[in-house]
Each structure stands twice: as C-alpha cells, then as structure tokens.
C-alpha cells in the first residue's frame, strides 16, 4: 500500500488549498505542471496572487506542493486510489483531490520517461551481426583450414553513445556461448523466478 507522506508544513498547505474551488485548483495544477519544465515568472505569480487576494509566498507554496505531489506520484508509480486516499487522510476535500489526481495521472507517463533517463545505465546490448570465415593461411602458418566466427556487437550506453565491439570465436566456444546463454534464458521460466516475480510487487 503505497502512500504519499506529507510533512507538517505540507499538511498546513493542504488545508489551505481547501479554501479554493475546483476550477482554481485545476488552474493551479496546470501552472504546477508547467513549472516542472520552466520556472514560473515572478510577475505572473504576483499578479495571480493579487487576483486571489493572498500573499505571493503562499501561492508559491501551494504550487510547489502540487508540483511535489505530481513528481512523487510519478516516482512511486502511485495509483489513483492510493493517491486519493493519501490526500484525503491529511484533510483535503474530495472534489479537490479528484482534480489533483486527474492531473497527476495525466502527467505520470511523461514524467516517468524523464526519470528513466536518470537511471543507472550499463552498456546494453542492441544488436549482433555475425560472419563465418575459414582461415586459410597466415604469415607464420600456411595451409590452414580453420573455421572462425566473427561477432559484431552493437552496444548502447544509454546516453546516446553507441559502441561497436568486434570479437571472434571458434566453433567450440561458439557452442559453449550459445548453450550457456540459452540456459540463462530458460531460468526466467523456472519456478523460483516465477515465485519471486509474483511476490515482489
């Protein structure tokens, strides 16, 4: 059961949100999502605060809180029910919670995309091309008849940098490599793995 945990200051701000109606909250959500990409113009902030008759600092706190809810929600992959409950528990009105939940859900995918760019990236496999050669002679040894497989690996290191590695192998090692990797692939279907996947949620 995932939940958003608000600290005391945030809880106070939530209570303050209750004094606005849902269309205004909707506006807040829209501005908050934009603020995630680009900082809010202080003039616009001051104007809006004046129109609503509240100090600009307070408006900023509310917008920051909503932005925080959107980001945390994406980070935790929270679902609608959990999000709704988290906000109601700290005292937010139902209709307002609905508006915020809708906004979070709309933006979740996009935000998670951004966050996945910050993940730890190891060199990852992209493609393999192979070629079968027969070695006929070298400078030191003539009259050879040795089969050889050239492997061209395409790797991607997650930061848009591609790496190409060219390796070779012989018949025996190729079979060993293939058999081992096939075994690895079959492990996913094992009972042990299935149990783990089912139970870690």
């Amino acid at each position: 059961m995932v939940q958003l945990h608000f600290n005391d200051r945030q809880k106070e701000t939530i209570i303050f949100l209750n004094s606005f109606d849902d269309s205004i909250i909707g506006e807040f959500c829209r501005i908050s999502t934009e603020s995630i990409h680009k900082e809010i113009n202080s003039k616009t902030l001051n104007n809006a605060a004046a129109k609503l008759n509240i100090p600009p600092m307070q408006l900023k706190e509310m917008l920051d809180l909503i932005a925080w809810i959107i980001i945390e929600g994406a980070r935790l992959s929270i679902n609608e029910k959990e999000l709704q409950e988290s906000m109601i528990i700290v005292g937010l009105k139902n209709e307002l919670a609905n508006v915020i939940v809708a906004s979070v859900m709309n933006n979740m995918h996009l935000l998670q995309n951004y966050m996945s760019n910050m993940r730890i990236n190891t060199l990852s496999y992209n493609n393999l091309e192979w070629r079968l050669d027969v070695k006929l002679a070298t400078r030191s040894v003539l009259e050879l008849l040795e089969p050889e497989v050239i492997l061209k690996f395409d790797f991607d290191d997650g930061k848009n940098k591609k790496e190409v590695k060219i390796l070779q192998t012989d018949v025996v090692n190729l079979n060993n490599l293939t058999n081992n990797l096939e075994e690895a692939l079959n492990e996913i279907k094992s009972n042990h793995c299935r149990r783990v996947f089912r139970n870690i949620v």
Partner: protein
Amino acid sequence: MEINSKSVAALKYAANDENLSTQSFEALIKLIFDSFIVDLKVGKLVPKLETKNLDTFDVPKVELKEISASFYTLIAEFARHNFDTVSVSTFLEDTGFSNEKINIFSQFYLEKREIIRLFLSSTTASFPHVVDVNWRLDYIVKENNLERINEPVYLIELKVEKSGETELSKVQFSCTVEQLQDLVFKLKEASKSVERLAQI
C-alpha cells in the same frame, strides 16, 4: 622454402657425423623438440630450452648455439609449410644428413608438427577471442529516482583473449529478456551454419 645461408651452413656442419655424432644429434634434437611444451596454467605454448642441458654436448659452445638456432629455423619453416616426412627427408638428404639422423628427425617432427603449428598460429593478428561467458539474472525492484520498476535484467560477461596478453579481459553488458532472446537466436543461427559447413 627459404633458409638463410648462415643457417644452411650450420646445418651442413651438424650433418657431418664427425662434428656431431648421431647420439649427440638425437639428444640435441630431442631437447629442441621437447622445448615446445604447453603451460597448463594458461593453456599456452611456452617454448623453453633449458640451456644447462646444452653443456653436456661435446661440441664447442659457439657452434652448438648456431646449430640449435638453425634447427629451430628449420623446424619453423617445415611446420609453416606443413611439410610431410617425404619433403622433410628430401631436404635433409640434400643438406647431407645421414639416413639415421633423418629418421630420428622425422619421427620427432611428425609427433610435434601440430603443436608447433599451433604455436606459430598464436602470433597472428586477430580480433579479441571469446573463450568463456558468465551471466547473471537480476530483478530490479526500485531505484532512487523510480520505484516499482519490477523488471528482470541480465548481466552478461564475455571472457576474451587478446593476442599478446596473458590475462583475459572482459566485455560486460546488460540486456533485457527480449534482447537476450534476440542474441541467442542469432548465435544459434551462426552455430547451425557452422554445422552445415562441416557437412559439406
């Protein structure tokens, strides 16, 4: 097949039974051929000639060194061209070796020819050679930027031999289940075509 004149001269010297008796010849040749041993730790050939054994011959040191060097050159050339015993005998005969010495040489040569060719081929330029693979299956639960990931991921490590280096190097990469399926499929294709080649 070309052998430089200095080596030919040394070989002619060795062919002469008065300079190098048949027993000494046999002992020297055995020493030289036996020096192509396999270092079991690395699985590589390590030609080692124990020089202290050379002291037991009744041939002056300088000539002995020249003869040994010329034999190594000769053996390398024979192995390089994959000469059979007939060609070897013919060449040795032309250089003036007695039939006895020729027989002794041919016997050792036949025994060691493949090993010597193996040793010679280890000096060629090549791409890094895959010799082993290690794999690991992990399940990503969460990261500091994203929770509830729940994705299996494979970490593959290829052990690779580079020519001229004794230590094995590694090529490490990760892949998802689909990527590994793609990789295994392609490797199987390669294996099958090697099998078909063997049947031709």
